[in-house]
């Protein structure tokens, strides 16, 4: 886990509405949430020395898509849990091959998110 007790989550998603919804879903659990609007900005957060426990990764984004961002993070040796969340069901294989830990289809439900958080032991 990242160095503090609070679970730190990075939302990587180009749509502002979706980011707002994810932020509210996560804030209910007292998590610390950071947002990045594309894969390149997400990578930069890690390059800047920030640590996260969980990344919620969209697929289609400008500058760098989610599969490439996932592959880049794994190539950097970043062990963070990465959950791909996309409407493209055909990208499951690509995401898992790139190193994502889980794959969820949009739109994200509270139940699906809660199940993943429990599976990763981020919830008591």
């Amino acid at each position: 886990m990242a160095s503090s007790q609070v679970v730190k989550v990075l939302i990587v998603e180009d749509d502002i509405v979706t980011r707002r919804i994810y932020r509210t879903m996560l804030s209910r659990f007292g998590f610390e949430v950071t947002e990045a609007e594309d894969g390149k900005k997400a990578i930069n957060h890690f390059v800047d020395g920030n640590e996260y426990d969980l990344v919620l990764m969209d697929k289609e984004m400008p500058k760098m898509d989610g599969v490439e961002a996932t592959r880049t993070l794994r190539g950097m040796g970043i062990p963070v849990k990465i959950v791909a969340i996309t409407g493209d069901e055909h990208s499951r294989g690509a995401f898992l091959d790139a190193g994502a830990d889980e794959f969820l289809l949009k739109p994200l439900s509270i139940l699906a998110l809660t199940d993943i958080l429990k599976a990763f032991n981020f919830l008591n």
Partner: protein
Amino acid sequence: MASAPFKAQLTDLLNSMFAMDFLDEQFKELQMLEEASGPGFLTEVVTLFCGDAERIISQLDALLNEPAVDFGKVDANVHQLKGSSSSVGAKRVALVCIKFRNVCQENDKEGCIAALHEIRHEFDELRKKFQTMLQLEQQIQDLDSK
């Protein structure tokens, strides 16, 4: 209670929006989130969505009026609108976005223009209903807080 008739109107409005597929189950997720996180969340998300959708639709209009249409940019914008409409449960808007992407991927300019008109129509209808919903919620809140 003074707010009772407005609550009834709001219930009727939302029921009709679900029945006519303006909204789907995802909107109910947002309603549950508001119950958990407090008032104001739905207003914020709906307002964000409407502003963002208006921006994207204007952008699409501009892109399709170019002499040489960049279908890649059109597709990227439609994809974004599909994403935000799916996230708020705006079912009819999301469905038209899927149709739009299909004609866009065939580089069909006329098809794209027709799809844009349809998106504009669906979004305008939805926005009117959202505005009524937010007005009713505000009236209810004002009356209940007295």
